[in-house]
């Protein structure tokens, strides 16, 4: 039985990891729900975000500025990807959509590898995030706490966009019944571009924020993508609240398991998914029949 400080530390790690997964999965799930495309380039885009911030920080000291510029870059990348490739596949079978986004992912990762090599890079923790904070009897890295707070704000903004803006209204209605949205006079295809770009920005931001915590390599996003698939199955395909809650649950499962036995931490998540598939395949918030 692990000690209390160890458990608490892992609980916080779980929050940080969970927040990250929630952000990654939110992007994935709204793209899936709105465009119907399962984006297999999601992991590569995570890495692109991390490398973007790595590059920008060569030219500026301000992490916040790097985040902002990085966002702009991801937005542009998302635009280009949708306009040049993704839009060709809206009427094609799901398998083809998976295949082409997988190909995009390969190309992105190889571009990174070509530009930066395969060795791990280091992104320095921002000056305001250095050191550790005292939380009762626990001493915990400050940046990770800030990470949780920042992602919480980002998810809140995404929530506000989805539930308080006209565009979000259209997106939510479009996930439910795209045909009816057209009958009400709205050209849903125009929303696709924006939704895809937002999804790309979300996962890119996750990569940017995660970069100081871990070694930055071209393949760093693959495992996150696999985990985010489990999260959206857990939360329900196309559901934003499902992605957030599912992400937090997934993060806690991984981290708390590792407090007990670190070799099973990843495996537990997939075992949970297997269980879910048998008992409740539509997940927490998904609708039956969307399978």
């Amino acid at each position: 039985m692990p000690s209390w400080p160890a458990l608490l530390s892992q609980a916080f790690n779980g929050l940080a990891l969970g927040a990250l997964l929630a952000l990654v999965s939110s992007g994935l799930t709204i793209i899936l729900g709105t465009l119907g495309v399962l984006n297999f380039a999601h992991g590569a885009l995570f890495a692109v975000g991390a490398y973007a911030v790595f590059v920008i920080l060569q030219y500026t000291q301000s992490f916040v500025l790097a985040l902002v510029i990085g966002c702009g870059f991801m937005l542009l990348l998302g635009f280009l990807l949708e306009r040049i490739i993704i839009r060709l596949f809206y009427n094609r079978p799901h398998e083809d959509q998976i295949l082409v986004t997988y190909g995009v992912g390969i190309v992105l990762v190889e571009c990174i590898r070509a530009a930066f090599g395969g060795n791990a890079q280091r992104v320095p923790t921002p000056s305001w995030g250095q050191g550790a904070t005292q939380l009762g009897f626990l001493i915990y890295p400050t940046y990770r706490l800030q990470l949780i707070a920042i992602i919480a704000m980002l998810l809140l903004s995404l929530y506000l966009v989805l539930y308080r803006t006209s565009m979000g209204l259209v997106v939510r209605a479009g996930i439910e019944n795209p045909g009816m949205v057209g009958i009400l006079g709205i050209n849903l295809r125009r929303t696709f571009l924006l939704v895809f770009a937002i999804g790309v920005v979300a996962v890119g931001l996750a990569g940017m924020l995660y970069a100081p915590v871990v070694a930055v390599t071209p393949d760093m996003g693959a495992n996150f993508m696999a985990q985010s698939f489990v999260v959206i199955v857990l939360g329900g395909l196309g559901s934003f609240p499902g992605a957030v809650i599912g992400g937090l649950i997934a993060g806690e499962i991984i981290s708390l398991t590792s407090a007990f036995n670190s070799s099973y931490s990843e495996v537990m998540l997939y075992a949970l998914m297997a269980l879910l598939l048998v008992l409740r395949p539509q997940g927490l918030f998904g609708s039956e029949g969307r399978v």
Partner: protein
Amino acid sequence: MSLLEVERINTLYGDSHVLFDLSIRVEQGEVVALLGRNGAGKTTTLRSIMGVLAPNSGQIRLDGRPIAGLPPSAIANMGVQLVPEERAVFGGLTVEENLRIAALTAPNAWSFERVYEVFPRLKERRKSSGRTLSGGEQQMLAIARALIRDARMILLDEPFEGLAPLIVRDLVTVARNLAAEGRTMIVVEQNIAAALSFANRVYGLNNGHVVFEGTAADLSANPELARDFLGVAS
């Protein structure tokens, strides 16, 4: 020139040939009823007009402008609005959000208050999500979405189906008021009595063909005219 001219359209549903050289016209301010047994092609006609199903041949003209083959969103923005048979209320959105999204692209959108005057029940339920509404309330919301767009021509697909007689009576009153105001409507209905109580003219459809055209008054006075497209065996 009629507001709507449907000229010899042939529409397929998948491989199935549903409409055969179908022609109807609708004048400004008229209420036209499309009657017939199901499978006759009434819903397909409405869908062809709205652009949900593009006709394979023939033409449809709105105010003289050809619209066959245009996407539904374009036709909606010309002032046509379909209230589908399945109502298609957005279950995850509230009543107010359903109305808001309907009003988004409408240049002369009604105010919420004006809509609530027609359907007071919706005002009580405005914060409820679509999936919690009863059948009658959903039908009201579906019609309200067409109204808030100030649609020039409303296509009603079986608006009274599956509703309790009291609710049908209320909706018929709303429909008659709209007709009296001069709003153009096409109604598809199996409840003949209800349809005829506010329609001006009637088309009878059978197996994708128009087999009858006349005034509602004529049909009410001589019901045996309806026998071969509505009745049981000739």
